[in-house]
Structure formats: C-alpha cells, structure tokens
C-alpha cells in the first residue's frame, strides 16, 4: 500500500498546459457567449451562465485569475447578455472580495457548504437583477424570480463538475 502510494504517478511529458493560466477566464467568456444561443423564450428562466462558471472557478480555486480580472470579465458578460453595463462588473468584483473574506474565516469546506455558498451568491445575483429591473419599472413580481433561482441552484453542481474536469485537463492531471 505504502509503496504503491509512494511510486510517482507522474509521467514524463505530463505538465500543465502552456496556456493553463488563461483557461479559466476563457471558459467564463465562453459561458457569457452562451447567451448568443438562438433560444427564444417567453420567460427568463435560464441561468446566468457566466456567473455560474465564474463562481464555479472561484470556489474550486482561490486564484483562477488575478483578482482584478473580475471587472473586465464582468464587462464582457454585461455586453453579451444585455444586462445594464456595469452590473456584472460590480457584482463579480464584489464576489471576489466576499469570497476572499470568507476564505479567511472558514477552516474547512465540503461539497455541501460550497453549494450553499453558491446558492447564496446566485440568489444575490438574481435579486440584484430584479432590483435593477425594478429601477426602470421593468421588473416582474418577485415570485416570478423563484423558478430561475431554483433552476440556477440545481444546475450549479453540474457546472462545478464540468469546471473540475476542465481544471484537471488544463493542469495535465
């Protein structure tokens, strides 16, 4: 047993991909581009893909990108999704800050706490979207925001899994 664990599993030529440092940011941009899909829906029940992938990476790793990248990534998301410009810039930067502060407090984490954390962040995202729509009298009743919230929270584990696969691939594991 011990011997097996000690034998190096690392093979020659197995190393992080050359552009591994940029993979997380690129996947976030690709997720933001998902809103270019030709889906014509009468209700806005689809999740905010960009934000799901963003918090997915940030919960998996503490440093998927330099902290200040949150602002330009959020800007790209705003452009592609049609949110008011600046919404994701502020929210995503604030998310980086909040998760860093949380990281200082928490001693350990597991799947469930991460999911709860993600659920809270998604709820804040949906509520902010609703609040900003309310500012221009474009908001539906708050109860109508429940289905997209539940859908987003339920699909988050799927996104987290995909991100963990991409992470393993980019690091050559």
């Amino acid at each position, binding site marked *: 047993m011990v011997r097996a664990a000690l034998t190096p599993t690392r093979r020659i030529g197995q190393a992080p991909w050359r552009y591994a440092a940029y993979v997380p940011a690129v996947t976030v941009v690709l997720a933001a*581009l998902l*809103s*270019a*899909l*030709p*889906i*014509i*829906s*009468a*209700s*806005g*029940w*689809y*999740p*905010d*893909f960009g934000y799901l992938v963003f918090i997915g990476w940030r919960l998996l790793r*503490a*440093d998927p990108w*330099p*902290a*200040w990248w*949150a*602002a330009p990534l*959020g*800007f790209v998301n705003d*452009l*592609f*999704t*049609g*949110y*008011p*410009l*600046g*919404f*994701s*810039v*502020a*929210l*995503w*930067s*604030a998310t*980086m*800050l909040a998760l*860093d502060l949380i*990281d*200082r407090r928490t001693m350990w984490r597991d799947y469930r706490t991460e999911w709860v954390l993600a659920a809270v962040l998604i709820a804040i995202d949906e509520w902010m*979207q*609703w609040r*900003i*729509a309310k*500012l*221009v*009298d*474009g*908001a*539906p009743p708050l109860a*109508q*925001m429940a289905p*997209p919230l539940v859908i987003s929270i339920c699909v988050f584990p799927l996104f987290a899994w995909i991100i963990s696969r991409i992470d393993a691939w980019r690091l050559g594991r």
Partner: protein
Amino acid sequence: MATARPGWSRRAQYGLFFSFIAVIAGIIVGLILLTLSLVAPEQFQRVRGAALDVTSPITSGLHEVTATVEGLFTGAGDYWNAANQNAELKRERQAMLRRMVEARAIFQENRQLKAVLNLREHERSTIAIGRVVGSSFNSPRRFAILSAGTSDGVRIGMPVRSPDGLIGRIIDVGAIASRVLLVSDRANIVPARLLRNGIPVIAQGRGDGTIDVRPLEVGRNPFKRGDIIITSGTGGLYPPLVPIGRVVKLDDDGAVALPLADPANISFAIVEPAFEPAAVAAETSVAAEAR
C-alpha cells in the same frame, strides 16, 4: 490574494494589498458604469451595438440550423396528414375569399369617407425585414435580438411587428443586429383599444410572455375572453390598428392577454418607421430610460 497571511515577504504583502485595492476599484468602476447606464444609457449605445454585431453571426447561424431541423420535422408531419389538411385548407380558402371581398368593399368605403373628412393618411412603409434570432433568456427583462441593424436603416425607437401583430420596439442597434423591447416586457406600455368596441385601454407586459390590459376609464371591466387588443396610435410611437394580443383571462379590473405575435414562432419581423416622426426625439430618451 487568497491566503490570509502571505508570510514575511514584504513583496507578497504589498501584492496582496494592491490586489485588494484593485478589486475595490473594480467594484467602484462597476457601480459608476451601472449608474451611468441607468441614468444616461445613450453613452453606451456604440459599445452595446458593437457587442450585438459580434454575437449576431453566431446567433443567426445557429438559428438557421435549428430552424432547418424544426422545418424537417414539421414538414414530415405535414405530409403525414396531407389529404385532411388539403380539404380543410380548401374550405378555409373559400371562407377567406368571401371575407376578403367584404373587406375590400369596406376598405374602399373607408377611403372615400376619409377623403370626405380630409384625414391625413399615413403611408405604411417598411424600413427593414429581419428574423428574431435570440432573446434575453437569462434575464427578468424581455428583449429579443433582431437580425437587422443600422446598415438596413433601423434606428432606436422604431416599432417592430410581424404580419400577426406587434412585437415591440428597437432599443439597441448595431450595424447588423438590434435589440427589441418586447411587448411582454414590463417597461413596455402600449396605448391600445379593444377591437370590438373601441374602448381605450393600456397594454403593459407582465414579464412572463403575457400582457396586462387595463381600461383607461375606471368602471366596469370591459373585457371578454377572446377580445382582440389593437394599438390606438396614441403617443405617435406605434402605428394604429396593429393587433397586440388576445384576452385569455379576466381579473378584477382588467385582463391578461397573450401576444398574437409569438416571437418564438414568427418567421419575419418588419421594422417600420416611427408613426409620428415628432415622437421619435422624445422616444430616444424614453427608450433609454426603459433599459
């Protein structure tokens, strides 16, 4: 930036500090941008238009694929009961022909009456024809992406309709694509009236694909199920006599209507010039506020 203490290295400590500053700067910049885009959205028209143009080829291309696949299935379905459908269509055509003759007579009479009254006749013209290729499916707002932009003559504030009914109005425009504020968006308020008796009503989206209609005058609920709501042309933004929706449910002081032009099922959307050009200038600021 994640580690609580970067150790004794002065350089690492500074790095941590500056990344905190950078994130806080990001939040502040975001809030400033957000305030600007809520208060003065026309600032960002160029950027938003450019983003629309970037994603438009993807959206349009994928839309072609899905439309083709859907067409194959419905096409196969049509062959399945071709004989029945043929008989039914023939019957409908006979009925339509009779109605059309009546309508033509009424149209002529109407024109004569209008000539007598010296009413100014608006020429109904088409600016551009596009396809609805996408929508804001991950937002509480109801927008659609239209595959026509400034290169086709589309400008902000122009009404968009399909042969079935009103779709909405343009609020963002790029060179080859534009964003439409759908009639089912809560910020879209359309002056309208009942087709049955001409009672003036106000149509406002509900954000879930349906429309809320309320009478202008408080009193008895004038709606019946199956009523057709049409635009009244008041305000000069939307042309009159464009069907908006059909009443499907009554509530205490109004009704809920379904849009007649379902953005998911229309093949073409027609962009028309704003009904009263004078209203356009005012509209650009209104459309901006509606964002």
